[in-house]
C-alpha cells in the first residue's frame, strides 16, 4: 500500500476502489457489494431539511478535533438549527496528491466515530484527487438531510419583542484554540475546540414547540455574527449582557493577550436559542441538563425596534456589537 495518495487514486479505477474500501467503508461502515450510484432513503412525512457545507480549514488537525469531525458536526448542527433530526449525511472529499493515507484514515476515522456516536450514517460520498498545489491537503463537503416534526419551526422571523436569548455554553473556545495554533503563536493552553454534535440537545427542546423561536450554531463570526443576523432578519434590536456571557478563564486571558474578542470567535459546539420569555427559565434548565449544554446561560433578549445588537458592558454602559469584519488577526495595538 502506498503511503501517500496519488492522482491515480482518484481516477475511478482499481486504486480508487481500494481507497474507498480501505478508508471510507472502513470508517463509515457499509459494503461495496451494496453500493449503488445513489443512496436510497425513506424519509418520514412532513418537512425535510437539507443542508450542505464545505470545509477547507487549515490546520487539518487541532486540539479537540479535525476537519472530519468538524465537517460532520457542522452539517448535523445546521440541520439541528432548523429543528431537524439528522437522518443521513453525504461526504465528498477533494484530496491533494501527496496527502498521507495516515492523515486521511484519521480524518475519516473521526467522522466514523462521531457517526456511530450519533447514529447518523454517512450514506454516500465521493472522492477526487487533485494535483499537488491545487488544494490544502483535504477539502470536505458534507450535505445532510433531516426531518422536522410538526410544531417545530425555527427561524429568526419568529423572534418577537420580549423574547430571551440563550447560549448553550462557553464562547470562543474553537476560534481561540485555532487562532493560537494557526498563527504559530507560542501559547500553551488547555483550551480545545468545542466541536460537538448538538442535535440531541435541540431534540430535547422539541416539546416546547413554538416557544422556541430560532436556533443557530455560532460558527464563523461567533455569537456576535449570529446576533447581528437575527437582528437583521427579525427586524428587532437585541440586547445582551457582557456579565452573562460564559467565557472560560483561559479564553478570556488568551484573547486579551492577543487582542481578540470572544464574542466574535467561532464555536463548533454551541448554539444560540431564542425562546419566549415565558418558557426561558425552563428551556435553560432543559439545556443545562444535557451534557452539551451544561454551561448554558441566558444572555439577553430582544430590545427595541432598531435592528442592531447592543451590549450592556460589565460597567453598566452600553455599546454596539457590530458585525465582525474580515479576518481575525492578533494585534499589539
Amino acid at each position, binding site marked *: 500500500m502506498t503511503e501517500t495518495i496519488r492522482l491515480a487514486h482518484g481516477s475511478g479505477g482499481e486504486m480508487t476502489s481500494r481507497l474507498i474500501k480501505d478508508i471510507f467503508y472502513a470508517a463509515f461502515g457499509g459494503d461495496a457489494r451494496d453500493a449503488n450510484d445513489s443512496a436510497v432513503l425513506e424519509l418520514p412525512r412532513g418537512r425535510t431539511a437539507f443542508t450542505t457545507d464545505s470545509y477547507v480549514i487549515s490546520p487539518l488537525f487541532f486540539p479537540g478535533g479535525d476537519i472530519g469531525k468538524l465537517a460532520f458536526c457542522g452539517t448535523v448542527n445546521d440541520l439541528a438549527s432548523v429543528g431537524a433530526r439528522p437522518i443521513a449525511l453525504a461526504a465528498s472529499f477533494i484530496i491533494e496528491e501527496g496527502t498521507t493515507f495516515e492523515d486521511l484514515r484519521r480524518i475519516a476515522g473521526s467522522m466514523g466515530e462521531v457517526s456511530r456516536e450519533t447514529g447518523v450514517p454517512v450514506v454516500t460520498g465521493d472522492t477526487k484527487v487533485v494535483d499537488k498545489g491545487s488544494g490544502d491537503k483535504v477539502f470536505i463537503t458534507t450535505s445532510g438531510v433531516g426531518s422536522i416534526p410538526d410544531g417545530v419551526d425555527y427561524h429568526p422571523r419568529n423572534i418577537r419583542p420580549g423574547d430571551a436569548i440563550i447560549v448553550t455554553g462557553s464562547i470562543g473556545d474553537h476560534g481561540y484554540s485555532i487562532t493560537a495554533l494557526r498563527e504559530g503563536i*507560542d501559547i500553551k493552553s488547555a483550551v480545545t475546540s468545542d466541536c460537538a454534535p448538538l442535535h440531541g440537545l435541540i431534540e430535547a427542546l422539541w416539546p416546547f414547540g413554538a416557544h422556541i423561536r430560532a436556533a443557530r450554531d455560532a460558527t464563523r463570526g461567533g455569537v456576535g455574527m449570529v446576533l447581528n443576523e437575527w437582528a437583521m432578519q427579525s427586524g428587532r434590536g437585541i440586547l445582551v449582557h*457582557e456579565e452573562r456571557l460564559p467565557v472560560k478563564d483561559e479564553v478570556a486571558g488568551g484573547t486579551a493577550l*492577543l487582542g481578540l474578542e470572544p464574542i466574535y470567535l467561532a464555536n463548533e459546539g454551541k448554539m444560540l436559542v431564542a425562546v419566549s420569555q415565558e418558557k426561558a427559565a425552563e428551556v435553560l434548565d432543559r439545556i443545562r441538563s444535557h451534557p452539551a449544554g451544561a454551561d448554558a446561560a441566558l444572555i439577553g433578549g430582544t430590545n427595541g425596534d432598531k435592528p442592531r445588537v447592543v451590549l450592556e458592558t*460589565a460597567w453598566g454602559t452600553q455599546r454596539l456589537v457590530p458585525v465582525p*469584519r474580515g*479576518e481575525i*488577526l492578533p*494585534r499589539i*495595538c
Partner: protein
Amino acid sequence: MRYGRKSFVDRDDDKKYVHKKYFRLMVERLREISKRPIKLMEVCGTHTMAIGKSGIRTVLPAEIEFVSGPGCPVCVTADSDIDAFMELAGERRVTLVTYGDMMRVPGSAGSLAELKAEGADIRVAYSSLEALAFARGEPQKEIVFLGVGFETTAPATAHAVKSAVAEGLPNFSVYNLHKTVPLAIRALLAGDGVQIDGLILPGHVSVIIGETPYAFIAAEFGVSGAIAGFEPPEIMAAIVRLAGDINAGKPRISNIYTKAVEPEGNLVAQGMLDEVFAPGDAEWRGLGVIPGSGLEFREGFASFDAAKRFSIERREVRLDRGCSCGEILKGMIKPSDCPLFGSRCTPERPVGPCMVSSEGTCAAYYLYNDMANVDQPTQM
C-alpha cells in the same frame, strides 16, 4: 469556569466590585463638576478603542467632547513607507514578519494581506522574538521584521536587534518605522489645528518614557494632560481630573496610572532604546515630517537596517484616496465628517488606514459610535 469579561481588575470578585463602584462614582462626580463645553483628545489608539468598547461616551455629559489623536502607529504610517515595505515583501522576496495590525493597511499597490494571498511569504507575529526565531530556524531565508509602533513597542525591536548582533545572525533585519509620541503632541498643539483643552496621555508609552516628557504640554501650551490606564474607571478618573483642571484654569500633567507608570519611566527600556536608536526625522500621516520624531538605527546597528541592506528607496508618495484621514488624525474633524465615511469606506471595505486599523479612529467611530445617538443616556 467564570462568567463575564476578564481583566486585570477581575482577578478577584472583590476588586471587580470595588472598581465598578468607583466607575459609578466617577460618572456622578463628572456630572457634578462639568460646567462648560470642553474638548479632550485621547492620543493613543488603544484608548480610542477602550473608550469605544467601554461605552463611556454614553454616560458622559453632553458638553464633554472627544477627539482622537495620532496615536495609532498603523494610521500614521505614511504612504511612502507603506509602499517601501510592500516593495520589500513583494518584489524583493524577503520573508516579511509583521504585527497583525499592519496586514490590511493599503498602499499604492494594495496591502500585505493581498500580497500574502498572492503567494508572498508574509507572516504575522505577536512579538519581535518570533521573527528572530524564524531567522534562526530558516537560515536560507532573509527575515525582515517590520518595526512599527511607539516607545512601548520599540524596545522589543531593540531587543531583537541586540540579540541578532550577539548571535551573529546574518539573515535578520528590521524595516524600521518606529516613532516617538511627545514630539507629535508638540506638533499637534503648535499647529493651527483644533483647540484642545485636555489630553488623555498614552498609558503604556508612559510606562516606558515616564512623566517628564509631557511637562511642556502644560508649561508651554497651557493644556492639561492625564496619563491614564485602560480600564473604564481609570479612563473616567482621568476625565474627571482633566475636567477639574480645565475648569480651575490650572493646567498640569497628572499621572493617574501610577500602578504602572513610574515618574522616571522604565530606565532599562530607555537605555536600550538609546543604545540602539537615535532620533531621526519621520513622516506622520496628517502631521507631515516631524524632525526628531523617528527612531533611526545608530551606526553600530546599521547593518540590521533593512532599508539599507536591500537598498530600498523611499519614494515620495501621497495617495489621494479622497479620504480625510490626515485631518482626522489631528482631531480637526470627526470621522463622520469625512465624505467617504460609512459609505465608500467601512471596516469591511476600508479606503484609508484610519478605518483599516483595528484601533483607527474611523474604525472605532464606525463600530461604537452609533450608540452616541442613543435616545436616552444610559441609566446607571
